[in-house]
Every structure is written in structure tokens, then in C-alpha cells.
């Protein structure tokens, strides 16, 4: 590395000695560092002579910039530089799909919170105060705030010169005008949810002697960040070196750039290390959110409960910049009927530009919103038919060999009916004996002592979902792994190097497990993630165990091949007869031949491999594709909810989940993903909504944007089944997203069962359930 000085507190090699291969649940290699407080998160980094960066953001959702005067800010003591759009060295645009977002605003601002200017100073407070001294003259414009109106009404002002539609996608299957005996329809809305990862955006940039820059940061995808950052800095990507530091959660919110270009610009301009750390309020403005949606649904069925058709129009508010809006429209429409076999489908999806906060990736991308709608519709249909909601779902459940609305045949297990039956059969909470006094802490309102049980009603509800795993619609989706095997201190040691972002999900543990299983060695170190190895793609779409797992498996097998060839040379046994286990090379005929260490000697065996999953293809104008998505995952939830109908207080009493994970590479981590994902779905169901009024976020704090606490999250029964996907490494199926999707409709269904209210918006608030 060519930086002049590396940060004092820097990303560590993970070298804890922990045993356990694929299918076991070894502990995390970063666990000890994390519980000691020694794990180097990006916000913890520090370098000698370091300055602090801060970002001036637009107070208006839509305005023209007449002028910017940086003079007063520049003259403030302690301020080292002030930068604006004119200082962006290269392309003043970036983006994940559409390259449409300025690094720093030029002539217009399109959302409240858009970055306008940067300051570097010797103390974070000095930098923040200097922001107030930057004088920006705005001509305030009327913001575009209604996505559906923007889609329907040509007279709505254009947020971008090319128009307000980011993506329109229809899906047609069978007869789009089919009719049925029993029809239910409804309009459903989903509020804007925040990823609310706990570690705010941060990075430390260190200018290098070769004119480049080293950036230590928290992100989901180093190579995507580097590509966009290098273009904005007008530097060769090789000169923009990125190293992953500790990531305090992500959930989609770190897919887009935030401080990356900004902090590098400040470092290159001042010639000093610069650190930017957002506070919580800035974090709400500094990353994209989950798309709010308005969805019109109509379901037709026979009197017996067989679905005949589903028609829907989905409007997604993408906010000011495209981010992942194209993918949200793709996922939302293709998965818009849910995990059901439906002969006739007509769905249209719009992803729109507005002057609302930009929306992009969040766990369950594009599948969360329609799941709330289609599952609400299934309950409505069950009620109209007088059928049990689980039976109606089981009757229509998609299964292996069925065809999706895009014309894709599911050529892997799709145990939707099984999951529904299993979650229904999990134990329910024990009934309270009528004579005992309930513990008020178990009731809605809890220790606030608002009820002793009077006015409290209970309901049970179900939800099931489908989510595509990995990138889709023709994206070349791959990951890279470098595995090195050598003898260190007399023992074989494997070093695994990938760029796969460890954001908490445990991909570091999984990589160690795969390496131990493939190479039969105990000691496996994880090299810090950086851009000196090939891309891994993003830690998103529940894809890292699939693609980086596949890459590590492939690299290990290449290393193994060379090791076995060495053995064959020396011992005269054909490689086909040899295997690796317990640190030894074993022959099928003559047993243990030698220690791996002995065979290796001073040899260093290193191999790098890419893993590409099966090809996918774009949708055509009718939304057809032989294979739009490489894999689908399914989960089912059952919720038990108590509601105090006098005060409108809701208490989720129990939340249970059955999920198919293909192969649980680390069973305990799988359960952890399901529990955590379910909690985020609970948040959307009853707590979490970014309140946007006239384009402005009204609640950018954890005081006003509430996420579940340990008091809100109930006990869970988690039931994991493994119906392996023959196309995926080890049969794995993505795990992280589905539980976030099916938990929300299950909880709302339970509230409906308790209260009899329609509940067409999430999150459900007190005003929806009172009376």
C-alpha cells in the first residue's frame, strides 16, 4: 500500500482459532474483537494530522442555486478547505444503475438533504459551524411529491430532464382480462422505512504519494464504490484503494455512495487524512430509504378458492435520484402475485422520480411492498369465501415445476405449502388462566401500566412470501476469492481473501467454514476486504453465501487440486484416490499418506477463482423471460398480537417463522438472520415510518423514528428446513431477506383478526385500531 501513513486503529486480520465446517455453527471470528470493543469500525479510525469533514445539505426539496459564497466559511479559524461542485475533479455524477446523482449539487437541488458543499476543519464542531457560514442563494421551487400523480399526469414538472419515469414494467400472463366468480379488491400503501443501521456512514481518506487515495470505510460493495469514486475523482481506479473497516449494519442503506467521494476530495485537496462521520440526523439524509408504495390490487377466484387472476398497479416513489428504483420495479412486478400459482396475471409497475428523499435498497428490495398487499388480499379473499386463510394459501401455493408470471419454470424446490403447514403447527403461546392476573409487562403498554387486560383483544395472522435471490434480469452476477495455503509455525494455514462485505451477517464465518471443509485444515484466516482482490459484488439480495461461498469453494478446490498433484508426484497415488481431512492427505486405498504440512513444505499454493451463477435474462415488453431470476426463497410467519383497542396500543405477543434455506451452512447464524429480519418486518408493521411532508423528513432521529426495542420484539419459534437447490453451491438458498417480508403481513393480519379493522397501510398506528 502506498499511503503515507496507515490509520492508527485499522482493520484487523481475523485469525481467531475456531473449528467447524459447513453445516456446523462455529463462532464468529470477529466475536472477541467485537465484545472487547477492539473491533475497528470505520468511525473509530484515526490518523495522525487528521482533519474532520462535514457536508452542507440543501434545506429545500426543490430549488435553483443562484450562487454559493464560500468566503466566510473559508476564513473561519480552523477551517482548511471548502469545496463545491466546481471542485469535483471528474464526473460530477454517480449512481448504481442510472448515473444521475451529482456528487455536489450544481445548478439545482432535487431533495432536502442533497449535498451542496464540503468543509474540512481541525475539529468536527468547527467543521459543522463553518457549514453555517457557507452562503447559498436558493430560488425555492414547488416540489413534486406524489409519485402516482407524476406517473399519470404529464403536466407535473420534470424532476430530471428525461422525465419522471425511472422504470415502467408490465407483466402479462394468460388472459389479462380474465373474469371470476369471487372478486376482492383493495388499495394498499406502505410508508417509507429506514434501514436504521446503528453505525452511521463514515470513512477515513488518506492521500497517497502516488497521487491516489486510500479510503477506509464501511460499505456493502467496495468495487462498486471504487468505480463511481474514481470516475468522480478523475483517477485511475487503481489509484483509488478501498479497505473495508468495521461495518455497523447495512440492510441496503450502504449500497449507494454517501461520503466516499466527498471525503476523498477533501483529503486530496488538503493533502491530509480526512474523516467524515455522519451523526444520526445526517444519516437520515445521507442514505436512501425503502420506497413508499401505493398499490391497487384485484384478485379473482372460483367459489372453491382457486385463484383465477391477479391484476395490480404498483406505484413506487423513488425520490430525487434513481438508485435501485429500476430493480425495485423489477422485483415488485415479477413477484407481485406472491408465492402463488396464478394462470392470469396483469401487473404494471412504475418507479418514479419525485422531490422526496431518494429511495433505494433495503432488505427485501421491492418484494416487501407487494407482499403486504397480496397477503392482505389473500386474507380478504379467505374471508369472502369463508375459508381458513392458511388453507386458501396452501391451495394456491406455487411449487416446483410451476410457472411464474414471467414464464419462468421453477426448477428447484418451492415448499410454500409445507412452510405454511409447518408454521401453523408450531406451538402457540400458553393460554393465560382466567383467574390469574396478567403481568402488565406482557400487555400492550407494558410497564406504563395502561391496562390490566381490559379492552385487550388477541388475534392470530399468517403471511408467506417469495423473494428472488442474487442479481437478476441479465446482470452478470459473480464473486471472486483468493485462497492461499502454506505452512506457518509447522501447521497448514489457509488465508481467504475476498471483497465480500461483512456487514454483520457472518460471511466471514461462512468463508472459514467452507475453507475448512474443502481443505481439511483447521486454521483459516480472513484477510481484510479490500480492492486488491477481484469484485465480490454487494452484500445484498441475500447473495453472499451463494456467490462468494461459491467462489471460495472453487478457489479451495483449485488449491486442493494442486496439493493433490504434489502428493501424487511424491507418493505415486493418483489424485482421484486422494482426499483432505483433519490436516492430512488421505488415500482411499492406503489410508493416511502424509500431513498436509509435510506435503506443502515451503510451497505456497495460491489460487483465485470467480463464481458466476446461472445466467439470467432481461424481461421483454410483456414481462416475459426464460429465467429472469436465478433463485427464489420462501418464508412463512405466524403472528399472535394483543391490541388495546381503547388506547390503540399494539403488542406482538409471539412471532413464529418457517423458512426453507436450502442448506444451512451455519444453522445458528441462519436463525439469527431470521430473528433479525423478522424484527425489521415487525418494525414496518407497527412502528417505523419516515414522515415526509412537502418533501421534507420530519422525524430524522431515533427519538422520533422508532425501531423495535427488546420490549417490542416477542419470543420466536424458528423452524428451518433444508430443501437444497441443486443449482447452488452446497444447495444454499438466500436467507436474509424473506423473514423481513413475510413477518409484516402476518402481524397486520393478526391485528385485523383481533380488531376487525381493514388496515390498508403499514405501519399500523394507534389511529388505525382504536374503537
Amino acid at each position, binding site marked *: 500500500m502506498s499511503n503515507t501513513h496507515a490509520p492508527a*486503529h485499522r482493520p484487523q486480520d481475523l485469525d481467531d482459532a475456531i473449528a467447524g465446517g459447513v453445516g456446523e*455453527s462455529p*463462532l*464468529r471470528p*470477529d*466475536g*472477541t474483537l*467485537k*465484545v*472487547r*470493543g*477492539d*473491533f475497528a*469500525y470505520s*468511525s*473509530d479510525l484515526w490518523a495522525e494530522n487528521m482533519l474532520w469533514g462535514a457536508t452542507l445539505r440543501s434545506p429545500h426539496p426543490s430549488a435553483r442555486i443562484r450562487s454559493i459564497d464560500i468566503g466566510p466559511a473559508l476564513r473561519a479559524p480552523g477551517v482548511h478547505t471548502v469545496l463545491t461542485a466546481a471542485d469535483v475533479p471528474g464526473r460530477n455524477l454517480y449512481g448504481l444503475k442510472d448515473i444521475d446523482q451529482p456528487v455536489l449539487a450544481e445548478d439545482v437541488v432535487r431533495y432536502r438533504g442533497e449535498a451542496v458543499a464540503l468543509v474540512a476543519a481541525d*475539529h468536527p*464542531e468547527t467543521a459543522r459551524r463553518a457549514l453555517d457560514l457557507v452562503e447559498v442563494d436558493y430560488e425555492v421551487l414547488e416540489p413534486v411529491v406524489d409519485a402516482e400523480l407524476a406517473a399519470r399526469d404529464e403536466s407535473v414538472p420534470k424532476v430530471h430532464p428525461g422525465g419522471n419515469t425511472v422504470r415502467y414494467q408490465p407483466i402479462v400472463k394468460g388472459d389479462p382480462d380474465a373474469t371470476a366468480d369471487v372478486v376482492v379488491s383493495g388499495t394498499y400503501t406502505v410508508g417509507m422505512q429506514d*434501514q*436504521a*443501521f*446503528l*453505525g*452511521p456512514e463514515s470513512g477515513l481518506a488518506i492521500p497517497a504519494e502516488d497521487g491516489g487515495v486510500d479510503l477506509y470505510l464501511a460499505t456493502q460493495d467496495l468495487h462498486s464504490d471504487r468505480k463511481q469514486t474514481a470516475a468522480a475523482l478523475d483517477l485511475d481506479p487503481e489509484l483509488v484503494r478501498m479497505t473495508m473497516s*468495521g*461495518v*455497523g*449494519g*447495512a*440492510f441496503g442503506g450502504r449500497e449507494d455512495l454517501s461520503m466516499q467521494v466527498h471525503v476523498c476530495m477533501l483529503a486530496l485537496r488538503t493533502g491530509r487524512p480526512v474523516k467524515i*462521520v455522519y*451523526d*444520526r440526523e445526517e444519516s437520515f439524509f445521507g442514505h436512501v430509504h425503502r420506497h413508499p408504495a401505493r398499490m391497487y390490487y384485484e384478485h379473482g377466484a372460483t367459489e372453491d378458492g382457486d385463484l383465477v387472476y391477479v391484476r395490480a398497479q404498483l406505484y413506487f416513489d423513488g425520490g430525487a435520484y434513481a438508485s435501485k428504483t429500476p430493480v425495485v420495479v423489477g422485483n415488485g412486478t415479477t413477484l407481485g402475485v406472491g408465492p402463488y400459482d396464478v394462470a392470469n396475471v396483469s401487473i404494471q409497475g412504475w418507479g418514479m422520480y419525485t422531490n422526496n428523499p431518494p429511495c433505494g435498497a433495503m432488505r427485501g428490495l421491492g418484494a416487501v411492498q407487494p407482499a403486504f398487499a397480496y397477503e392482505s388480499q389473500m386474507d380478504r379473499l379467505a374471508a369472502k369465501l369463508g375459508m381458513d386463510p392458511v388453507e386458501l394459501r396452501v391451495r394456491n401455493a406455487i411449487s416446483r415445476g410451476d410457472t411464474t408470471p414471467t414464464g419462468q419454470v421453477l426448477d428447484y424446490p418451492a415448499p410454500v405449502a409445507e412452510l405454511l403447514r409447518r408454521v401453523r403447527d408450531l406451538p402457540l403461546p400458553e393460554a393465560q388462566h382466567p383467574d390469574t392476573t396478567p403481568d402488565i*409487562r*406482557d400487555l400492550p403498554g407494558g*410497564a406504563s401500566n395502561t391496562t390490566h387486560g381490559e379492552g385487550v383483544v388477541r388475534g392470530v395472522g399468517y403471511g408467506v412470501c417469495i423473494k428472488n435471490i442474487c442479481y437478476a434480469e441479465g446482470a452478470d452476477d459473480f464473486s471472486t476469492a483468493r485462497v492461499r495455503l502454506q505452512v506457518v509455525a509447522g501447521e497448514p494455514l489457509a488465508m481467504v481473501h475476498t471483497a465480500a462485505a461483512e*456487514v*454483520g*451477517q*457472518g460471511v466471514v464465518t461462512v468463508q472459514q467454514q467452507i475453507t475448512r471443509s474443502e481443505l481439511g485444515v483447521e486454521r483459516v484466516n480472513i484477510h481484510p476486504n479490500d480492492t486488491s482482490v477481484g469484485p465480490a459484488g454487494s452484500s445484498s439480495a441475500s447473495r453472499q453465501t451463494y456467490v462468494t461461498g461459491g467462489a471460495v469453494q472453487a478457489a479451495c478446490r483449485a488449491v486442493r487440486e494442486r496439493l493433490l498433484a504434489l502428493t501424487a508426484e511424491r507418493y505415486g497415488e493418483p489424485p482421484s484416490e486422494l482426499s483432505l481431512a483433519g490436516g492430512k492427505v488421505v488415500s482411499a486405498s492406503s489410508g493416511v499418506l502424509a500431513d498436509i504440512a509435510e506435503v506443502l513444505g515451503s510451497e505456497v499454493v495460491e489460487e483465485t477463482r470467480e463464481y458466476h451463477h446461472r445466467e439470467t435474462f432481461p424481461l421483454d415488453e410483456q414481462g416475459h423471460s426464460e429465467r429472469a431470476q436465478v433463485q427464489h426463497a420462501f418464508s412463512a410467519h405466524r403472528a399472535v398480537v394483543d391490541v388495546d383497542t381503547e388506547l390503540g396500543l399494539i403488542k406482538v405477543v409471539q412471532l413464529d417463522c418457517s423458512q426453507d434455506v436450502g442448506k444451512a451452512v451455519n444453522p*445458528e447464524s441462519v*436463525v*439469527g438472520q431470521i*430473528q*433479525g*429480519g*423478522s*424484527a*425489521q418486518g415487525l418494525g414496518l408493521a407497527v412502528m417505523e415510518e419516515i414522515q415526509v411532508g412537502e418533501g421534507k423528513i420530519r422525524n430524522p*432521529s*431515533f*427519538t422520533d423514528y422508532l*425501531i*423495535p*426495542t*427488546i*420490549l417490542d*420484539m416477542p*419470543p*420466536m419459534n424458528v423452524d428451518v428446513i433444508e430443501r437444497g437447490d441443486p443449482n447452488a453451491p452446497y444447495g444454499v438458498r438466500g436467507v436474509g431477506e424473506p423473514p423481513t417480508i413475510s413477518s409484516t403481513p402476518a402481524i397486520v393480519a393478526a391485528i385485523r383478526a383481533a380488531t376487525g379493522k381493514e388496515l390498508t397501510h403499514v405501519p399500523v398506528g394507534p389511529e388505525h385500531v382504536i374503537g
Partner: protein
Amino acid sequence: MRLKLNVNGRDMTADDVWEGESLLYVLRERLGLPGSKNACEQGECGSCTVYLDRVPVCACLVAAGQAQDREVGTVEGLADEEELAPVQRAFIDEGAVQCGFCTPGLLVAADDLVNRVPDPSDAEIREALAGNLCRCTGYEKIMAAVRTAAERNAGTGISESTGGDRE
């Protein structure tokens, strides 16, 4: 101003502290103890929980000057050199750590609980940790970790506070 305080059993001094700085800022940026985390800076998330004279507080809400001549205990002081504290061991063993950003604050809050209450009920655990947000785990494994730590504590007879006076 000059600030003198005792952190994790050691007397420490920080110079040139601006009056507006919080105890959290001083710990993280001036004393080389970044274990306590800043996730909300308004006392909502608990990620910066530390002991102040053996009482858990949000370090972001304590003005640096308020810590003058007082004892502070942080996550870095929970372990006895090589030996992890029972709550630290239990958080690893039970899988209660994912991204780990909430972990330092939760550990201090949990350490306080298991040392105050020998055999906490689930309701007591939830109440004690209600001020600590975790976005990754859904809290189930945190519950398991605190139960395990309490059981192990009972097994060893440790029950006095291990907060600011460690070492």
C-alpha cells in the same frame, strides 16, 4: 479545559477539551477508547453506555466536564486482561453479536444487570436492556446471552459490580 478522570481503573488526563464535548467524544477521540459507540447522540440507542461511578449512563448525554474526578468504566474495561467478563463470553457463545455496533453498550447494561440481579427473569432482562437498540439480531440471542451469563455468574458466585473499579 483540562479534564482528569479515572477510566477503567487508570487515571487519565485530556487537554484542550472544548466545553461542548461529551464524555463519549473525549473517550473516543481524546483517550483512545473508541469501544463505546456513537449511534444517535441523544440517549436513545444505548450504544455509548458506560459506567459513571458504577451507574450505567449514556456517555453521549454526559458533558465531558461532568466526568471530572469521577470513575468511568467502558467496554474496554469489562474483561480482566485475557479473561472475558461473563457477559462478553456469553454474547459470543450465544451468537448475540452480528454487526456488533450495539454490543459495547449492551454489554455494559447487561453486566450491570447480572451483577445487580443474580437470577433475572425474562421481564427483568427486557426492562434492563430496553434502552439499548439492536438492529441485527431481533434480540432473541441477546436474551439467551444474558440468561447464560447470569447462570454462569451464579455458578461462580460472582455478583458484585465489576464496573468502573475493575483491574
